[in-house]
């Protein structure tokens, strides 16, 4: 990619529970959050399958009536293995079915139009991304291709690449994958520090729906330098909801001696209630969750206090503070050196989280003045504008991000030999010298890992390559290994035997578990199929409405005496029976082709043609009276 990207660009915050899209507005010198078709500034990251496909608000609204086909939390699955211990617990809680596919890739089973379909997490995410794209296109009034998508800073290589794949399936040109807290820092810099010239050490605390990230960013002279980042890719609002759900399932069992944990519909309704209660508890001290006839006709009515909620999640909140401390340690910065603590993500509104953070930093002025739900998309839009050539007025800023996880090679005894330590500024090129451990060793293999564990096998394997043709020399023969990481997170590793000049290496792009280009192609076709089906469905609804409308109007007109005088009773009866047949057609589920309804409408129109001219006039006269 030698040139800047042509065409306007958007920033998308693809969240676990909610997503948000923003675009740079040149004339105002700021980014604009784009509202969706429901008038909401964030869109639920939900996709549902019925006789049609629903995305966003529409999908979430029907979740309780269709729990097994309403997919959410795809971000928790993306780029992970089915056996990943992090999702083991989720698998039990999700009302939809997840099975293990090829290469232990988790596949989501849905029922679409009566047929079973297996979808990868990338496909679900791509549907959400294409929805966000549509929202932006409707608002901006032109078609878009370029986007910057955000991911949690602590996402690993496979999760990032899977997110990028999702963008490709959605028909987007993903200009860059950037870290959520870094994006928030950009938003903060632009909104709060117009010139960004004075030095500020900013601590970004991003507790979202599914993930938790912290970053320490130094802003000076328009340079945003990420000093350190830390996080947990499985800690967020959803986990707090889960704790509440578990608590209430037990309470309900204790009180009514029934177990609702096997009923997905009841669990979904309870979960929705808990999410609402959690939000209320951020400003009230207690609240009551009431759900009529939750299970076997028994009403659910329990109250919960803020203290109880905090108690249920105490360990999770404390974990956030631990991670914050790790981040400061990595940045080699004292708490008092931090100028601003910026809260991002919906869950950062929880009073307990704020008070713990205040205690942690020994200060009472957390920065709450940027919108925690929108800051990430806002920042992504700024970065998108900076990477696109279509904007002439963009902020004079530059972002220097870091790699969140150490990169290295497994050495003798499965030890992790780190070449690029975590929190190194990217792009970067670093090298390390490795030695053979056997006499006359002809070949050396280089398994490339990512992660913080000392035991390489416990880290994430990115790829493997060999260097052969080593000279017949005793052990201890040196080989130089060069790691190159570009700003897109693409890693090139190459090993050189300095004595012979032999060289071999890999570009890590397509490791196991990632979608192959053939699969991506198939998914793009599938996405087009879904889009076509959505269009068909829309067309059918439109045709149905048109027919319904016509029958209604004509029936009303037939009742007018003027028409009766022009038609014989038998003629009238024929027409009326045709109308009845039309109504039956509309009510039955048998037909789902728009053409059936359109043709019937045409037939009716033809039949009524001789009398229609008068009638319509009469009808409209009536109307204007």
């Amino acid at each position: 990619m030698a040139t800047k990207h042509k065409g306007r660009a958007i920033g998308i915050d693809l969240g676990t529970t909610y997503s948000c899209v923003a675009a740079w507005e040149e004339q105002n010198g700021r980014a604009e959050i784009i509202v969706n078709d429901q008038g909401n500034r964030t869109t639920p990251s939900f996709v549902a399958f019925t006789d049609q496909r629903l995305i966003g608000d529409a999908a979430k609204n029907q979740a309780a009536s269709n729990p097994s086909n309403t997919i959410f939390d795809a971000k928790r699955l993306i780029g992970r293995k089915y056996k990943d211990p992090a999702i083991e617990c989720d698998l039990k809680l999700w009302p939809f079915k997840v099975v293990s596919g090829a290469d232990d890739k988790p596949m989501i089973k849905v029922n679409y139009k009566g047929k079973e379909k297996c979808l990868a997490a990338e496909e679900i995410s791509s549907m959400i991304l294409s929805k966000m794209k549509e929202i932006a296109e409707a608002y901006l009034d032109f078609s878009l291709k370029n986007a910057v998508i955000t991911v949690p800073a602590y996402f690993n290589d496979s999760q990032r690449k899977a997110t990028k794949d999702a963008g490709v399936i959605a028909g987007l040109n993903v200009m860059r994958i950037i870290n959520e807290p870094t994006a928030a820092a950009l938003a903060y810099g632009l909104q709060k520090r117009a010139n960004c010239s004075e030095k500020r050490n900013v601590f970004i605390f991003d507790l979202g729906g599914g993930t938790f990230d912290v970053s320490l960013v130094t802003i000076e002279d328009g340079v945003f330098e990420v000093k350190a980042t830390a996080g947990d890719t499985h800690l967020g609002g959803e986990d707090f909801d889960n704790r509440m759900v578990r608590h209430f399932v037990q309470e309900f069992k204790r009180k009514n001696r029934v177990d609702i944990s096997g009923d997905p519909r009841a669990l979904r309704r309870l979960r929705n209630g808990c999410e609402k209660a959690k939000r209320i508890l951020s400003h009230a001290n207690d609240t009551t969750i009431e759900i009529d006839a939750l299970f076997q006709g028994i009403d659910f009515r329990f109250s919960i206090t803020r203290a109880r909620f905090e108690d249920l999640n105490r360990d999770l909140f404390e974990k956030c503070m631990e991670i914050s401390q790790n981040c400061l340690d990595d940045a080699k910065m004292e708490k008092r050196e931090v100028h601003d603590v910026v809260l991002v993500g919906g869950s950062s509104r929880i009073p307990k989280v704020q008070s713990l953070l205040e205690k942690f930093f020994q200060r009472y002025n957390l920065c709450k003045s940027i919108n925690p739900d929108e800051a990430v998309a806002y920042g992504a839009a700024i970065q998108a504008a900076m990477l696109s050539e279509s904007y002439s007025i963009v902020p004079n800023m530059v972002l220097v991000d870091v790699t969140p996880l150490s990169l290295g090679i497994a050495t003798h005894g499965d030890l992790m030999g780190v070449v690029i330590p975590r929190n190194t500024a990217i792009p970067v090129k670093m090298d390390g010298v490795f030695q053979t451990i056997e006499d006359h060793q002809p070949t050396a293999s280089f398994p490339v890992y990512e992660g913080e564990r000392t035991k390489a096998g416990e880290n994430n394997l990115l790829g493997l390559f060999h260097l052969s043709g080593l000279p017949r020399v005793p052990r201890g023969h040196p080989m130089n290994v060069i790691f190159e990481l570009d700003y897109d997170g693409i890693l090139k590793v190459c090993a050189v035997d300095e004595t012979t000049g032999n060289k071999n290496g890999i570009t890590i792009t397509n490791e196991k578990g990632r979608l192959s280009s053939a699969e991506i192609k198939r998914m793009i076709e599938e996405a087009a199929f879904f889009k076509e089906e959505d269009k068909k469905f829309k067309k059918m609804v439109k045709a149905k409405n048109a027919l319904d409308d016509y029958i209604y109007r004509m029936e009303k007109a037939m009742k007018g005496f003027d028409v009766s005088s022009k038609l014989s009773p038998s003629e009238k009866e024929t027409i009326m029976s045709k109308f009845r047949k039309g109504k039956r057609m509309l009510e039955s589920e048998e037909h789902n082709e728009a053409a059936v309804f359109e043709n019937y409408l045409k037939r009716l129109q033809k039949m009524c043609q001789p009398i229609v001219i008068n009638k319509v006039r009469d009808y409209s006269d009536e109307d204007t009276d």
Partner: protein
Amino acid sequence: FNWRHGSEKAYEFSTESESSCSGSVPDRLALGLNSSGPLKLEDVKNAYRACALKWHPDRHQGSSKAIAEEKFKRCSAAYQSLCDKLVMD
């Protein structure tokens, strides 16, 4: 290949990266600093920020992008090694 010998992880790890003590002057020059004389941490940081604004690949397009990327990598490495050194002193 002789796979018996070419087994996995058949080597040892010795040094983490290039020794930084050799490259103080080139590091200084990479950041546009004086090649000798006293050096303050603040100067190094300022120089690095100036380099970032000038050479970060995001701020370049066309053929200069690749050159900028190389330059920026060099600046980052120099910045890292100079900072490490100044902190240790």
